[in-house]
Every structure is written in C-alpha cells, then in structure tokens.
C-alpha cells in the first residue's frame, strides 16, 4: 500500500498528461489549421523574440482574428533635417487593411511614415534619411537596468559611508563579496597593485552592467539587451579605447617592432599584431553576443517545439529541457560577465604594465 501511495502522485501526473495529449490528437485539432498562411513559423517567432522592437510585446491572447495583444507601445523619436523632430507613440502605426496597430508592417498615414520590420521610412521617399532615435525595447530595458544598478549600488555605497567598519547587512552583504572578488581577483590580479584603482570603477560597472542585463533578459518578457550586437559593440569599443589610450610605449613597441625575433619575421608579424589590436575587442563583442543570443534561441526553440508538433504531449520534454537551459543560462550570465571583465582587465594590464626585465630574455632593451 505504501508503495502505491508513494508513486500515486507521479502516476497520476503521467496518466493525466498522456490522456490530454491523446485527446488533443482528435480529428478536429489538426485539420483546423487551414492553409491561410497562418502556419507556425518557428524561425520567425525566434527572430521576433531576439530582435529589438518599437513596442514591448508581452503576450497575445485569443483566436485568430480576435486577438488581444498585451503590449507596451514605446515612443518613436525620429529626426531628419527635412522634417525636424517627431515624437509619437508606436501605437500610431496601423495596418492599412484592418486598422489595428501593427508594428511590423504598419502605416502612420497622417505623417506619411511606414514601418517595415523595424525600419521606419517616409512613404514615397524611401531613401530619405531618418535618424531613428526611438526608445525601443532594448533602450527601455537598458534604462531599467541602469536604474536598477544605480539604486542597488547607491544603497550599498551609503551603507559604507554610514559605517565602514561595521559588519555588512542586507543588500551590502550580498554584493560585498562580489565587489571584493572583482577588485582582488580580477583588477589587482591582472592590472597590478599600483595602478588598478584607476580602472576599478570601469571594471565594476562593466561586470554588473553585463550581469544584471543578462539576468533581465532571462525573465520571461524581458528584452535581449546584451544579445544585441550594437550593445556589445559599444562595450568592446569602450574597452578598446581604454586599453589603447592608456597604453604605454612598451605596449606599442611590442606590437609594431616586436623585440627578440629576427628582422624578416618582424615584418611579417607587424600586420598580424596590428590586426590583433582590433580582433581582441572584436572577440569580446562576438563572445558575449553569441553566448546570450544562443541561450535565448535554445530556450525559445524548446518552447517552439510544442507549437511545431501542435500537441501538448511534447510539453514535459520542452518544459524540462527549457528549465534546464534556463538555469544553465543563469550560470552563463555571470560567467560571461566575468569573462568580459577579466579579459578587459587582462588587456588593460598588458597595456600599462611596466616592463619587468627578466635576465635571460634576449630583448635588446
């Protein structure tokens, strides 16, 4: 009896799921999807969730034709020298046939603007240059992330101001070990005891910005900010500028005229090293972008499996794997933040280090 009771709940769940999935394979379920071009396209769904958008779409409820979109229309800000500054809600873009707001193929008739897959253009003058400065989903998410960072770290900082020597409490006790980790094991380790403090604010900001935004992107309905190559490009450019603007003469000498190797090789190595100045931040950019975007694509694909098979019996598999991938993405979130920060510290460190002369290095200087 005990054995039966122990496994009764598990057996009930299995039987219920098999039962519902058999029921959903009824004759009506499959034939209903008439070929009106409404078949589920997983690639489109995934790209829509990964990409930036002018409105923040949470869910769509209801049958085809009577759908209710739960979304947050975001402001569209356009500037051009001919038309000046225009600000309006992205709700104004409507589908010319149905009159409902449509952000992927919409027309704003009063102002003569059309939007096509996120690209806004002037009707009749497709090549007119419009600066799209809108608050898109990614911009809104980065503003939320920035606000979160400011709130959290000003709280932590004020706790230090009030009593630097007392034991940490509350939110300070969570962030203090992490801040100390970035300071000791990343900044001091790679940049050195003497010069790390100048670069520590940037490294801390970089770490927490990437980590918080990775996590915000994993919340259902969150925006894929760090998986946007423009964002990671900006972070990589910052690293590039900081590294190369604070580099000392030894760094440039090692790149342009590598000491210790014969002259013909130096000529060959010169272009490789010069390209290497660019490829290191480039790798930073692509690594973060690809990791985060790939994680989102995997989770979306597992959920999309349910819609591809049009059956709920795939759901236990989808939910299990999706949950596993989501938890793995939590690890990836902090790991990628750490990797980006550590490599930045490494590049800065190698750029500003004083040259430690080892006696057996045939350096020539």
């Amino acid at each position, binding site marked *: 009896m005990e054995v039966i009771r122990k496994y009764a709940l598990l057996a009930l769940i299995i039987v219920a799921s098999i039962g519902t999935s058999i029921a959903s394979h009824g004759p009506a379920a499959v034939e209903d999807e008439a070929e009106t071009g409404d078949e589920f396209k997983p690639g489109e769904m995934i790209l829509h969730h990964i990409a930036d958008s002018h409105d923040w779409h949470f869910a769509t409820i209801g049958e085809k034709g009577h759908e209710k979109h739960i979304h947050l229309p975001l402001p569209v800000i356009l500037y051009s020298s001919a038309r000046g500054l225009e600000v309006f809600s992205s709700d104004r873009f409507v589908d010319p046939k149905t009159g409902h707001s449509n952000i992927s193929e919409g027309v704003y008739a009063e102002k003569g603007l059309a939007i096509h897959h996120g690209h806004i253009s002037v009707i009749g003058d497709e090549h007119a240059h419009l600066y799209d400065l809108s608050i898109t989903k990614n911009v809104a998410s980065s503003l939320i992330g920035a606000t979160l960072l400011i709130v959290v770290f000003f709280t932590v900082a004020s706790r230090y101001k009030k009593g630097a020597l007392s034991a940490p409490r509350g939110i300070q006790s969570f962030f203090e070990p992490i801040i100390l980790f970035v300071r000791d094991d990343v900044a001091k380790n790679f940049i050195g005891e003497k010069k790390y403090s100048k670069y520590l604010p940037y490294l801390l900001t970089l770490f927490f910005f990437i980590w918080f935004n990775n996590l915000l992107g994993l919340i259902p309905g969150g925006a894929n900010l760090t998986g946007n190559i423009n964002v990671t490009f900006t972070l990589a450019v910052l690293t590039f500028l900081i590294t190369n603007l604070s580099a000392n003469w030894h760094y440039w000498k090692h790149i342009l005229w590598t000491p210790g190797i014969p002259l013909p090789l130096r000529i060959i190595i010169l272009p490789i090293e010069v390209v290497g100045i660019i490829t290191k931040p480039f790798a930073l950019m*692509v*690594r973060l*972008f*690809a*990791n985060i975007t*790939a994680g989102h694509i995997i989770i979306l694909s597992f959920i999309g499996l349910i819609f591809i098979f049009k059956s709920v019996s795939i759901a236990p598999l989808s939910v299990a794997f999706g949950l596993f991938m989501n938890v793995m993405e939590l690890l990836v979130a902090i790991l990628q933040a750490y990797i980006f920060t*550590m490599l930045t510290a490494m590049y800065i460190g190698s750029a500003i280090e004083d040259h430690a002369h080892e006696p057996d290095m045939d350096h020539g200087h």
Partner: protein
Amino acid sequence: MLASLLLDGLAMAGAGIGAGIAVLGAGLGIGRIGGSATESIARQPQESGKIQAAMIIAAALIEGVALFAVVVCLLVVLA
C-alpha cells in the same frame, strides 16, 4: 533557376554541417579540459577550488570560439 536553388540548398547544407563541426570541436576541447581538471583534482584534492575555477574559465573561452562558428552559420541561413 535550378542553379540558384542548388546554391541555396548547398548554402543551407554548409551552414548545418558547419554548426555540427563547431559543436564537435567545442565538445572535444571542453571534454579534454574536464578530463585534465578531474585528473588534477584527483591528484591534489586540496587545490580543487583553483582547478575548478580555471576549468570554468577555459571552458567559457572555448565556448566563445564555438559560438563564433554558430554565428557565422546563422548568418548564412538568415542572410
């Protein structure tokens, strides 16, 4: 027209095969790291913290390279 269809099909096939080979490389590389990490921990259990940290970092860097390849394959499929 047949030529362009063939080209498209070959491009898709190339993208798929490329992604598969990238996963192969990443799996082999990270497997080796895991193997040597566990070996080292078996030899010196007291250093297991440092070895684990080094393993995770090396794995993340290799995964970065594999995802480079995935991005290229995605570009072939989507553009």
